[in-house]
Protein backbone atom coordinates (compact mmCIF):
# COMPACT_ATOMS: atom_id res chain seq x y z
CA UNK A 1 0.00 0.00 0.00
CA UNK A 2 1.08 3.56 -0.61
CA UNK A 3 1.05 4.22 3.11
CA UNK A 4 4.04 1.92 3.62
CA UNK A 5 6.04 3.66 0.95
CA UNK A 6 5.27 7.01 2.48
CA UNK A 7 6.51 5.87 5.88
CA UNK A 8 9.83 4.67 4.41
CA UNK A 9 10.28 7.86 2.46
CA UNK A 10 9.64 10.08 5.45
CA UNK A 11 11.74 7.92 7.74
CA UNK A 12 14.75 9.04 5.68
CA UNK A 13 14.11 12.59 6.87
CA UNK A 14 14.74 11.38 10.37
CA UNK A 15 13.95 13.95 13.09
CA UNK A 16 11.70 13.31 16.10
CA UNK A 17 9.50 16.26 15.24
CA UNK A 18 8.80 14.68 11.90
CA UNK A 19 7.71 11.43 13.54
CA UNK A 20 4.73 13.21 15.11
CA UNK A 21 3.57 14.73 11.87
CA UNK A 22 4.00 11.36 10.14
CA UNK A 23 1.62 9.76 12.60
CA UNK A 24 -0.88 12.60 12.19
CA UNK A 25 -0.71 12.42 8.42
CA UNK A 26 -1.24 8.67 8.47
CA UNK A 27 -4.13 9.06 10.85
CA UNK A 28 -5.75 11.66 8.54
CA UNK A 29 -5.32 9.34 5.64
CA UNK A 30 -6.85 6.46 7.53
CA UNK A 31 -9.77 8.67 8.59
CA UNK A 32 -10.40 9.55 4.98
CA UNK A 33 -10.60 5.92 3.96
CA UNK A 34 -12.01 4.25 7.06
CA UNK A 35 -14.51 5.14 9.75
CA UNK A 36 -15.36 3.48 13.05
CA UNK A 37 -18.93 2.20 13.12
CA UNK A 38 -20.74 3.52 16.23
CA UNK A 39 -22.89 0.38 16.13
CA UNK A 40 -20.24 -2.32 16.47
CA UNK A 41 -17.00 -0.39 16.95
CA UNK A 42 -15.37 -2.04 13.94
CA UNK A 43 -13.50 -0.13 11.26
CA UNK A 44 -15.51 0.15 8.05
CA UNK A 45 -14.18 1.21 4.68
CA UNK A 46 -15.93 4.39 3.57
CA UNK A 47 -16.22 3.34 -0.07
CA UNK A 48 -17.86 0.07 0.98
CA UNK A 49 -20.20 1.95 3.29
CA UNK A 50 -21.30 4.19 0.44
CA UNK A 51 -22.03 1.17 -1.72
CA UNK A 52 -24.15 -0.38 1.07
CA UNK A 53 -26.29 2.80 1.41
CA UNK A 54 -24.52 3.74 4.63
CA UNK A 55 -25.51 0.51 6.37
CA UNK A 56 -22.68 -1.16 8.30
CA UNK A 57 -21.87 -4.53 6.65
CA UNK A 58 -21.00 -6.01 10.08
CA UNK A 59 -23.87 -4.94 12.31
CA UNK A 60 -26.48 -3.20 10.13
CA UNK A 61 -26.03 0.17 11.87
CA UNK A 62 -27.53 2.94 9.74
CA UNK A 63 -24.94 5.70 9.37
CA UNK A 64 -26.08 9.26 8.71
CA UNK A 65 -26.08 10.00 4.98
CA UNK A 66 -26.29 13.15 2.89
CA UNK A 67 -29.35 14.39 1.02
CA UNK A 68 -27.72 13.42 -2.27
CA UNK A 69 -27.01 9.88 -1.07
CA UNK A 70 -30.58 9.49 0.16
CA UNK A 71 -32.07 10.77 -3.09
CA UNK A 72 -29.66 8.45 -4.91
CA UNK A 73 -30.95 5.19 -3.45
CA UNK A 74 -34.57 6.18 -2.79
CA UNK A 75 -35.69 7.71 -6.08
CA UNK A 76 -35.82 6.46 -9.65
CA UNK A 77 -32.63 7.59 -11.43
CA UNK A 78 -32.87 11.22 -12.59
CA UNK A 79 -36.42 11.62 -11.26
CA UNK A 80 -35.68 14.01 -8.39
CA UNK A 81 -36.36 17.51 -9.70
CA UNK A 82 -35.19 19.87 -6.99
CA UNK A 83 -36.98 23.20 -6.62
CA UNK A 84 -34.77 25.90 -8.00
CA UNK A 85 -35.20 28.69 -5.49
CA UNK A 86 -32.65 29.05 -2.73
CA UNK A 87 -34.21 29.96 0.61
CA UNK A 88 -31.85 31.09 3.34
CA UNK A 89 -32.16 32.48 6.85
CA UNK A 90 -33.10 36.09 7.49
CA UNK A 91 -31.43 35.81 10.92
CA UNK A 92 -34.43 37.30 12.78
CA UNK A 93 -32.59 37.68 16.10
CA UNK A 94 -29.37 39.02 14.58
CA UNK A 95 -27.78 36.24 16.61
CA UNK A 96 -24.19 36.62 17.88
CA UNK A 97 -23.88 39.94 16.07
CA UNK A 98 -24.35 38.42 12.61
CA UNK A 99 -21.87 35.53 13.08
CA UNK A 100 -24.70 33.03 12.64
CA UNK A 101 -25.96 34.71 9.47
CA UNK A 102 -22.47 34.63 7.93
CA UNK A 103 -22.08 30.94 8.74
CA UNK A 104 -25.50 30.17 7.25
CA UNK A 105 -24.79 32.18 4.10
CA UNK A 106 -21.43 30.51 3.60
CA UNK A 107 -23.18 27.13 3.68
CA UNK A 108 -25.47 28.46 0.95
CA UNK A 109 -28.18 25.89 1.58
CA UNK A 110 -30.76 25.11 4.21
CA UNK A 111 -31.48 21.98 6.22
CA UNK A 112 -34.19 20.81 3.81
CA UNK A 113 -34.34 20.26 0.04
CA UNK A 114 -37.60 19.62 -1.79
CA UNK A 115 -38.87 18.78 -5.21
CA UNK A 116 -40.80 16.20 -7.17
CA UNK A 117 -39.51 12.65 -7.38
CA UNK A 118 -40.59 9.15 -8.36
CA UNK A 119 -40.20 5.92 -6.39
CA UNK A 120 -40.65 2.80 -8.53
CA UNK A 121 -42.62 4.82 -11.03
CA UNK A 122 -44.95 6.53 -8.55
CA UNK A 123 -44.61 10.30 -8.21
CA UNK A 124 -44.53 12.31 -5.00
CA UNK A 125 -43.24 15.55 -3.56
CA UNK A 126 -40.14 14.81 -1.50
CA UNK A 127 -38.73 16.92 1.34
CA UNK A 128 -35.35 15.66 2.51
CA UNK A 129 -33.63 16.99 5.61
CA UNK A 130 -29.89 17.69 5.67
CA UNK A 131 -28.21 17.01 9.01
CA UNK A 132 -25.01 18.73 7.89
CA UNK A 133 -26.79 22.12 8.03
CA UNK A 134 -26.95 23.08 11.72
CA UNK A 135 -27.87 19.55 12.76
CA UNK A 136 -30.86 19.51 10.43
CA UNK A 137 -32.54 22.04 12.70
CA UNK A 138 -35.76 23.79 11.71
CA UNK A 139 -35.10 27.45 10.93
CA UNK A 140 -37.73 29.82 9.60
CA UNK A 141 -36.33 29.03 6.15
CA UNK A 142 -36.88 25.29 6.71
CA UNK A 143 -40.46 26.08 7.76
CA UNK A 144 -40.94 27.93 4.48
CA UNK A 145 -39.37 25.11 2.44
CA UNK A 146 -41.70 22.60 4.06
CA UNK A 147 -44.68 24.89 3.41
CA UNK A 148 -43.72 25.09 -0.27
CA UNK A 149 -43.34 21.33 -0.46
CA UNK A 150 -46.92 20.96 0.80
CA UNK A 151 -48.12 23.63 -1.65
CA UNK A 152 -46.38 21.82 -4.52
CA UNK A 153 -48.15 18.61 -3.51
CA UNK A 154 -51.52 20.39 -3.52
CA UNK A 155 -50.75 22.03 -6.86
CA UNK A 156 -49.88 18.75 -8.60
CA UNK A 157 -52.13 16.46 -6.54
CA UNK A 158 -49.12 14.49 -5.30
CA UNK A 159 -48.52 12.76 -1.95
CA UNK A 160 -45.80 14.12 0.32
CA UNK A 161 -42.79 12.14 1.48
CA UNK A 162 -40.56 13.68 4.16
CA UNK A 163 -37.24 12.15 5.21
CA UNK A 164 -36.65 13.60 8.67
CA UNK A 165 -33.21 14.03 10.20
CA UNK A 166 -33.15 16.83 12.72
CA UNK A 167 -32.11 17.79 16.23
CA UNK A 168 -35.14 20.09 16.60
CA UNK A 169 -35.83 23.80 16.26
CA UNK A 170 -32.83 26.05 15.49
CA UNK A 171 -31.80 27.78 18.70
CA UNK A 172 -30.06 30.61 16.79
CA UNK A 173 -33.42 31.78 15.45
CA UNK A 174 -35.32 31.69 18.75
CA UNK A 175 -39.09 32.24 18.84
CA UNK A 176 -39.45 32.93 15.07
CA UNK A 177 -38.09 29.42 14.41
CA UNK A 178 -40.24 27.94 17.20
CA UNK A 179 -43.32 29.40 15.48
CA UNK A 180 -42.53 27.29 12.42
CA UNK A 181 -43.80 24.29 14.40
CA UNK A 182 -47.26 25.85 14.06
CA UNK A 183 -46.63 27.21 10.58
CA UNK A 184 -45.89 23.78 9.08
CA UNK A 185 -49.09 22.37 10.62
CA UNK A 186 -51.15 24.93 8.69
CA UNK A 187 -49.37 23.81 5.51
CA UNK A 188 -50.15 20.14 6.29
CA UNK A 189 -53.77 21.13 6.88
CA UNK A 190 -53.98 22.22 3.22
CA UNK A 191 -52.57 18.88 2.16
CA UNK A 192 -55.25 17.15 4.23
CA UNK A 193 -57.99 19.32 2.76
CA UNK A 194 -56.81 18.17 -0.67
CA UNK A 195 -57.00 14.60 0.68
CA UNK A 196 -53.38 13.93 -0.14
CA UNK A 197 -51.43 11.40 1.91
CA UNK A 198 -48.27 12.21 3.84
CA UNK A 199 -45.56 9.65 4.56
CA UNK A 200 -42.71 10.45 6.92
CA UNK A 201 -39.49 8.48 7.17
CA UNK A 202 -37.88 9.17 10.53
CA UNK A 203 -34.09 8.87 10.45
CA UNK A 204 -31.54 9.31 13.21
CA UNK A 205 -32.18 11.71 14.88
CA UNK A 206 -35.78 12.93 14.67
CA UNK A 207 -36.08 15.04 17.78
CA UNK A 208 -37.40 18.17 19.48
CA UNK A 209 -39.71 20.56 17.70
CA UNK A 210 -39.42 18.73 14.40
CA UNK A 211 -40.55 15.47 16.01
CA UNK A 212 -43.28 17.43 17.80
CA UNK A 213 -44.67 18.95 14.60
CA UNK A 214 -44.78 17.65 11.04
CA UNK A 215 -42.61 14.53 11.51
CA UNK A 216 -45.18 12.75 13.67
CA UNK A 217 -48.23 14.23 11.92
CA UNK A 218 -47.92 11.87 8.96
CA UNK A 219 -50.55 9.36 7.86
CA UNK A 220 -47.94 6.64 7.68
CA UNK A 221 -44.81 6.86 9.81
CA UNK A 222 -41.78 4.78 8.83
CA UNK A 223 -38.55 4.75 10.81
CA UNK A 224 -34.99 3.69 10.09
CA UNK A 225 -33.52 0.98 12.36
CA UNK A 226 -32.01 2.43 15.53
CA UNK A 227 -33.20 5.99 14.85
CA UNK A 228 -33.60 8.17 17.95
CA UNK A 229 -37.13 9.60 17.83
CA UNK A 230 -38.16 11.78 20.74
CA UNK A 231 -39.08 15.21 22.00
CA UNK A 232 -36.44 15.35 24.76
CA UNK A 233 -33.23 13.46 24.03
CA UNK A 234 -31.45 11.12 26.46
CA UNK A 235 -28.99 13.85 27.48
CA UNK A 236 -31.77 16.29 28.46
CA UNK A 237 -33.57 13.51 30.37
CA UNK A 238 -30.35 12.65 32.20
CA UNK A 239 -29.64 16.29 33.06
CA UNK A 240 -33.16 16.82 34.39
CA UNK A 241 -33.74 13.55 36.25
CA UNK A 242 -30.18 12.50 37.01
CA UNK A 243 -30.96 9.03 35.63
CA UNK A 244 -29.32 7.74 32.49
CA UNK A 245 -32.02 6.28 30.22
CA UNK A 246 -31.59 2.76 28.81
CA UNK A 247 -29.69 2.52 25.51
CA UNK A 248 -32.88 1.60 23.63
CA UNK A 249 -34.63 4.72 25.00
CA UNK A 250 -36.80 6.28 22.29
CA UNK A 251 -35.26 4.20 19.50
CA UNK A 252 -37.33 3.28 16.44
CA UNK A 253 -37.80 -0.34 17.56
CA UNK A 254 -39.22 0.61 20.98
CA UNK A 255 -41.54 3.14 19.33
CA UNK A 256 -42.83 0.36 17.08
CA UNK A 257 -43.53 -1.78 20.14
CA UNK A 258 -45.47 1.07 21.73
CA UNK A 259 -47.57 1.69 18.67
CA UNK A 260 -46.05 5.07 17.84
CA UNK A 261 -44.68 4.23 14.39
CA UNK A 262 -46.00 1.89 11.70
CA UNK A 263 -42.88 0.14 10.51
CA UNK A 264 -39.11 0.02 10.96
CA UNK A 265 -37.63 -0.21 7.48
CA UNK A 266 -33.95 -0.85 6.74
CA UNK A 267 -32.55 1.25 3.88
CA UNK A 268 -32.31 -1.55 1.31
CA UNK A 269 -36.08 -2.15 1.67
CA UNK A 270 -37.24 1.49 1.70
CA UNK A 271 -37.72 1.81 -2.08
CA UNK A 272 -39.92 -1.24 -2.11
CA UNK A 273 -42.02 -0.15 0.89
CA UNK A 274 -42.38 3.52 -0.06
CA UNK A 275 -42.90 2.67 -3.73
CA UNK A 276 -45.62 0.22 -2.72
CA UNK A 277 -47.40 2.80 -0.58
CA UNK A 278 -47.22 5.48 -3.27
CA UNK A 279 -48.56 3.04 -5.85
CA UNK A 280 -51.43 2.16 -3.51
CA UNK A 281 -52.23 5.84 -2.87
CA UNK A 282 -52.18 6.70 -6.58
CA UNK A 283 -54.98 4.20 -7.21
CA UNK A 284 -57.50 6.30 -5.28
CA UNK A 285 -60.65 7.44 -7.12
Amino acid at each position, binding site marked *: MTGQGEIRERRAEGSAACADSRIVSLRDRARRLWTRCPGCGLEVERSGLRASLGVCPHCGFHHRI*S*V*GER*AGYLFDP*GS*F*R*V*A*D*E*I*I*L*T*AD*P*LCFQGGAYRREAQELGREAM*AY*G*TAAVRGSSCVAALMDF*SVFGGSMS*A*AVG*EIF*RRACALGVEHGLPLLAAVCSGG*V*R*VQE*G*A*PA*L*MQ*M*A*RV*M*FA*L*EELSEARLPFISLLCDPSCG*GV*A*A*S*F*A*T*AADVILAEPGAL*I*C*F*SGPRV*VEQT*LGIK*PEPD*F*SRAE*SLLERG*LVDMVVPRPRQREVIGGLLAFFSERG
Partner: protein
Amino acid sequence: MDAWNVVAFSRHPQRPTAADFIELACDYFFEIKGDRSGADDPSVIAGMVTMCGERLAVAGHEKGSGATERKRRNMGMPGPRGFAKALRLFKLAEKLSLPVLCLVDTPGAYPGVEAEEHGQAFAISRNLAALASLKTPVIVALIGEGGSGGALALGVGDAVLMMENATFSVISPEGCSSILWRDAGKAREAAEMLRLTSRDMLELDLIDAVVPEGPGGAHAQPVAAALNLRKSVLEHLRALSALPIPSLLERRKERYRRLAFFHEVPGDEAGLSVSAGRLP
Protein backbone atom coordinates in the same frame (compact mmCIF):
# COMPACT_ATOMS: atom_id res chain seq x y z
CA MET B 1 -34.95 45.95 33.40
CA ASP B 2 -32.79 43.60 31.32
CA ALA B 3 -33.94 40.30 29.80
CA TRP B 4 -32.53 38.27 32.69
CA ASN B 5 -34.62 40.25 35.19
CA VAL B 6 -37.70 39.56 33.08
CA VAL B 7 -36.83 35.85 33.16
CA ALA B 8 -36.64 36.05 36.96
CA PHE B 9 -40.03 37.83 37.09
CA SER B 10 -41.61 35.25 34.77
CA ARG B 11 -40.42 32.48 37.12
CA HIS B 12 -41.15 34.29 40.39
CA PRO B 13 -42.59 31.79 42.92
CA GLN B 14 -45.34 34.28 43.84
CA ARG B 15 -46.26 35.03 40.24
CA PRO B 16 -49.99 34.37 39.68
CA THR B 17 -50.57 31.03 37.94
CA ALA B 18 -53.31 29.99 35.52
CA ALA B 19 -55.47 28.85 38.48
CA ASP B 20 -54.96 32.24 40.16
CA PHE B 21 -56.02 34.01 37.00
CA ILE B 22 -59.14 31.86 36.71
CA GLU B 23 -59.99 32.57 40.35
CA LEU B 24 -59.37 36.33 40.07
CA ALA B 25 -60.91 37.01 36.66
CA CYS B 26 -63.67 34.43 36.18
CA ASP B 27 -67.05 34.00 37.89
CA TYR B 28 -67.94 30.36 37.23
CA PHE B 29 -65.45 27.53 36.80
CA PHE B 30 -66.11 23.87 36.15
CA GLU B 31 -62.85 21.96 35.96
CA ILE B 32 -62.56 18.96 33.66
CA LYS B 33 -60.10 16.24 34.66
CA GLY B 34 -58.22 13.48 32.90
CA ASP B 35 -57.41 12.33 29.41
CA ARG B 36 -60.27 9.74 29.38
CA SER B 37 -57.60 7.16 28.82
CA GLY B 38 -56.33 6.28 32.24
CA ALA B 39 -54.93 9.30 34.05
CA ASP B 40 -55.12 12.96 34.99
CA ASP B 41 -52.07 15.18 34.54
CA PRO B 42 -52.29 18.01 37.11
CA SER B 43 -49.73 20.14 35.22
CA VAL B 44 -52.58 21.19 32.95
CA ILE B 45 -55.73 22.87 34.26
CA ALA B 46 -58.78 22.98 32.01
CA GLY B 47 -62.45 23.74 32.23
CA MET B 48 -65.40 25.93 31.39
CA VAL B 49 -65.68 29.46 32.77
CA THR B 50 -67.75 32.61 32.58
CA MET B 51 -65.95 35.93 32.52
CA CYS B 52 -68.01 39.16 32.67
CA GLY B 53 -70.95 37.24 31.21
CA GLU B 54 -68.93 35.61 28.41
CA ARG B 55 -68.72 31.82 28.30
CA LEU B 56 -65.30 30.38 27.52
CA ALA B 57 -63.29 27.17 27.57
CA VAL B 58 -59.96 27.61 29.35
CA ALA B 59 -56.84 25.46 29.28
CA GLY B 60 -53.56 26.38 30.88
CA HIS B 61 -50.29 25.08 32.24
CA GLU B 62 -50.57 25.08 36.02
CA LYS B 63 -47.36 25.39 38.03
CA GLY B 64 -49.12 25.37 41.40
CA SER B 65 -48.53 27.65 44.40
CA GLY B 66 -46.35 26.56 47.31
CA ALA B 67 -43.74 23.79 47.37
CA THR B 68 -46.15 20.85 47.75
CA GLU B 69 -48.51 22.04 45.03
CA ARG B 70 -45.61 22.83 42.72
CA LYS B 71 -44.32 19.29 43.09
CA ARG B 72 -47.76 17.77 42.53
CA ARG B 73 -48.31 19.96 39.48
CA ASN B 74 -44.83 19.08 38.20
CA MET B 75 -44.04 22.81 37.82
CA GLY B 76 -46.50 23.02 34.93
CA MET B 77 -44.48 20.63 32.75
CA PRO B 78 -47.05 18.39 31.03
CA GLY B 79 -46.61 14.88 29.75
CA PRO B 80 -48.68 13.53 26.86
CA ARG B 81 -51.66 13.04 29.18
CA GLY B 82 -51.67 16.73 30.05
CA PHE B 83 -51.64 17.71 26.41
CA ALA B 84 -54.43 15.19 25.78
CA LYS B 85 -56.52 16.84 28.52
CA ALA B 86 -56.09 20.21 26.80
CA LEU B 87 -57.02 18.58 23.48
CA ARG B 88 -60.19 17.22 25.06
CA LEU B 89 -61.09 20.75 26.07
CA PHE B 90 -60.36 22.14 22.58
CA LYS B 91 -62.72 19.58 21.04
CA LEU B 92 -65.39 20.26 23.64
CA ALA B 93 -65.14 23.99 22.93
CA GLU B 94 -65.48 23.37 19.20
CA LYS B 95 -68.55 21.23 19.73
CA LEU B 96 -70.24 23.79 21.99
CA SER B 97 -69.01 26.84 20.00
CA LEU B 98 -67.18 28.20 23.01
CA PRO B 99 -64.18 30.43 22.40
CA VAL B 100 -60.94 29.01 23.84
CA LEU B 101 -58.55 30.84 26.14
CA CYS B 102 -55.11 29.27 26.56
CA LEU B 103 -53.00 30.34 29.54
CA VAL B 104 -49.36 29.55 28.79
CA ASP B 105 -46.94 29.20 31.71
CA THR B 106 -44.43 26.36 31.52
CA PRO B 107 -40.68 25.79 31.54
CA GLY B 108 -41.42 23.23 28.81
CA ALA B 109 -42.87 19.79 28.18
CA TYR B 110 -41.70 17.31 30.83
CA PRO B 111 -38.45 15.62 29.77
CA GLY B 112 -39.13 12.21 31.32
CA VAL B 113 -38.69 8.63 30.14
CA GLU B 114 -42.36 7.78 30.66
CA ALA B 115 -43.51 10.94 28.86
CA GLU B 116 -41.41 9.92 25.86
CA GLU B 117 -42.67 6.32 26.01
CA HIS B 118 -46.21 7.62 25.79
CA GLY B 119 -45.44 9.77 22.77
CA GLN B 120 -44.63 13.27 24.01
CA ALA B 121 -43.73 14.51 20.51
CA PHE B 122 -46.91 12.99 19.07
CA ALA B 123 -49.09 14.64 21.72
CA ILE B 124 -47.64 18.10 21.05
CA SER B 125 -47.99 17.63 17.29
CA ARG B 126 -51.65 16.61 17.71
CA ASN B 127 -52.42 19.73 19.72
CA LEU B 128 -50.73 21.99 17.17
CA ALA B 129 -52.78 20.41 14.38
CA ALA B 130 -55.99 20.70 16.41
CA LEU B 131 -55.42 24.38 17.22
CA ALA B 132 -54.54 25.17 13.62
CA SER B 133 -57.97 24.03 12.43
CA LEU B 134 -60.19 24.46 15.50
CA LYS B 135 -63.55 25.90 14.41
CA THR B 136 -63.89 28.39 17.24
CA PRO B 137 -61.92 31.51 18.24
CA VAL B 138 -58.69 30.79 20.16
CA ILE B 139 -57.02 33.45 22.30
CA VAL B 140 -53.59 32.69 23.71
CA ALA B 141 -52.30 34.53 26.77
CA LEU B 142 -48.63 34.09 27.62
CA ILE B 143 -48.78 34.70 31.38
CA GLY B 144 -45.41 33.47 32.65
CA GLU B 145 -42.80 31.20 31.13
CA GLY B 146 -43.26 30.23 27.50
CA GLY B 147 -40.91 27.28 27.17
CA SER B 148 -40.55 25.83 23.69
CA GLY B 149 -42.83 23.18 22.16
CA GLY B 150 -44.55 22.48 25.46
CA ALA B 151 -45.76 26.09 25.50
CA LEU B 152 -46.71 26.10 21.83
CA ALA B 153 -48.91 23.01 22.30
CA LEU B 154 -51.28 25.41 24.11
CA GLY B 155 -50.09 28.47 22.23
CA VAL B 156 -51.47 28.64 18.69
CA GLY B 157 -54.45 30.88 18.08
CA ASP B 158 -56.16 33.88 16.49
CA ALA B 159 -54.72 36.39 18.92
CA VAL B 160 -51.65 36.06 21.13
CA LEU B 161 -51.48 38.33 24.18
CA MET B 162 -48.43 38.53 26.39
CA MET B 163 -48.09 39.76 29.95
CA GLU B 164 -45.45 42.44 30.29
CA ASN B 165 -42.99 40.22 32.20
CA ALA B 166 -43.74 36.92 30.52
CA THR B 167 -41.20 35.21 28.27
CA PHE B 168 -41.38 33.06 25.18
CA SER B 169 -38.41 31.12 23.91
CA VAL B 170 -37.23 28.09 22.00
CA ILE B 171 -34.88 27.15 24.86
CA SER B 172 -34.16 28.32 28.41
CA PRO B 173 -31.34 30.87 28.71
CA GLU B 174 -29.42 28.28 30.77
CA GLY B 175 -29.85 25.66 28.06
CA CYS B 176 -28.85 28.10 25.34
CA SER B 177 -25.76 29.15 27.24
CA SER B 178 -24.65 25.57 27.83
CA ILE B 179 -25.10 24.74 24.13
CA LEU B 180 -23.27 27.82 22.89
CA TRP B 181 -20.49 28.12 25.44
CA ARG B 182 -20.71 24.77 27.29
CA ASP B 183 -21.31 26.91 30.36
CA ALA B 184 -24.74 27.38 31.95
CA GLY B 185 -23.35 30.39 33.85
CA LYS B 186 -23.73 32.80 30.94
CA ALA B 187 -27.51 32.62 31.08
CA ARG B 188 -27.88 36.39 31.47
CA GLU B 189 -26.07 36.97 28.19
CA ALA B 190 -28.08 34.20 26.49
CA ALA B 191 -31.37 35.68 27.75
CA GLU B 192 -30.50 38.91 25.98
CA MET B 193 -29.59 37.14 22.72
CA LEU B 194 -32.75 35.02 22.60
CA ARG B 195 -35.04 38.08 22.46
CA LEU B 196 -37.62 36.43 24.68
CA THR B 197 -39.31 39.43 26.37
CA SER B 198 -42.72 40.87 25.50
CA ARG B 199 -41.05 43.92 23.94
CA ASP B 200 -38.92 41.68 21.68
CA MET B 201 -41.92 39.57 20.75
CA LEU B 202 -43.90 42.68 19.77
CA GLU B 203 -40.98 43.95 17.68
CA LEU B 204 -40.72 40.57 15.94
CA ASP B 205 -44.48 40.80 15.28
CA LEU B 206 -45.13 37.43 16.93
CA ILE B 207 -47.75 38.72 19.37
CA ASP B 208 -50.75 41.05 19.12
CA ALA B 209 -50.68 42.91 22.41
CA VAL B 210 -48.71 43.36 25.63
CA VAL B 211 -50.72 43.36 28.86
CA PRO B 212 -49.31 45.74 31.50
CA GLU B 213 -48.63 44.28 34.96
CA GLY B 214 -48.04 47.51 36.85
CA PRO B 215 -44.94 48.46 38.84
CA GLY B 216 -43.26 45.55 40.63
CA GLY B 217 -44.76 42.94 38.27
CA ALA B 218 -47.73 40.59 38.51
CA HIS B 219 -46.48 38.97 41.74
CA ALA B 220 -46.66 42.36 43.46
CA GLN B 221 -50.12 43.21 42.08
CA PRO B 222 -51.88 39.98 41.10
CA VAL B 223 -55.40 41.46 41.06
CA ALA B 224 -54.49 44.40 38.84
CA ALA B 225 -52.58 42.10 36.48
CA ALA B 226 -55.50 39.64 36.27
CA LEU B 227 -57.99 42.43 35.55
CA ASN B 228 -55.73 43.93 32.87
CA LEU B 229 -55.46 40.53 31.24
CA ARG B 230 -59.22 40.03 31.42
CA LYS B 231 -59.81 43.41 29.76
CA SER B 232 -57.47 42.53 26.90
CA VAL B 233 -58.95 39.03 26.49
CA LEU B 234 -62.50 40.42 26.30
CA GLU B 235 -61.50 43.07 23.74
CA HIS B 236 -59.97 40.47 21.45
CA LEU B 237 -62.78 38.02 22.09
CA ARG B 238 -65.43 40.52 20.96
CA ALA B 239 -63.55 41.28 17.74
CA LEU B 240 -62.97 37.59 16.96
CA SER B 241 -66.48 36.42 17.83
CA ALA B 242 -67.87 38.80 15.21
CA LEU B 243 -66.11 36.84 12.44
CA PRO B 244 -67.81 33.94 10.66
CA ILE B 245 -65.86 30.68 11.25
CA PRO B 246 -64.51 30.31 7.66
CA SER B 247 -63.00 33.81 7.70
CA LEU B 248 -61.70 33.22 11.22
CA LEU B 249 -59.82 30.12 10.03
CA GLU B 250 -58.56 31.91 6.93
CA ARG B 251 -57.34 34.77 9.09
CA ARG B 252 -55.58 32.34 11.47
CA LYS B 253 -53.85 30.61 8.58
CA GLU B 254 -52.77 33.97 7.21
CA ARG B 255 -51.52 35.08 10.63
CA TYR B 256 -49.07 32.15 10.75
CA ARG B 257 -48.22 32.30 7.07
CA ARG B 258 -47.02 35.84 7.69
CA LEU B 259 -44.45 34.60 10.23
CA ALA B 260 -41.92 34.16 7.45
CA PHE B 261 -38.39 35.05 8.41
CA PHE B 262 -36.44 33.93 5.37
CA HIS B 263 -34.51 35.38 2.50
CA GLU B 264 -34.95 34.10 -1.02
CA VAL B 265 -32.19 33.93 -3.60
CA PRO B 266 -33.83 33.64 -7.00
CA GLY B 267 -32.82 30.60 -9.06
CA ASP B 268 -31.55 30.72 -12.64
CA GLU B 269 -35.01 30.03 -13.92
CA ALA B 270 -38.46 29.90 -12.41
CA GLY B 271 -40.09 26.64 -11.45
CA LEU B 272 -38.36 23.29 -11.31
CA SER B 273 -35.32 22.07 -13.13
CA VAL B 274 -33.38 18.86 -13.29
CA SER B 275 -30.68 19.73 -10.82
CA ALA B 276 -30.19 16.77 -8.53
CA GLY B 277 -26.49 17.15 -9.24
CA ARG B 278 -26.52 20.25 -7.06
CA LEU B 279 -27.35 18.20 -3.97
CA PRO B 280 -24.65 17.87 -1.36
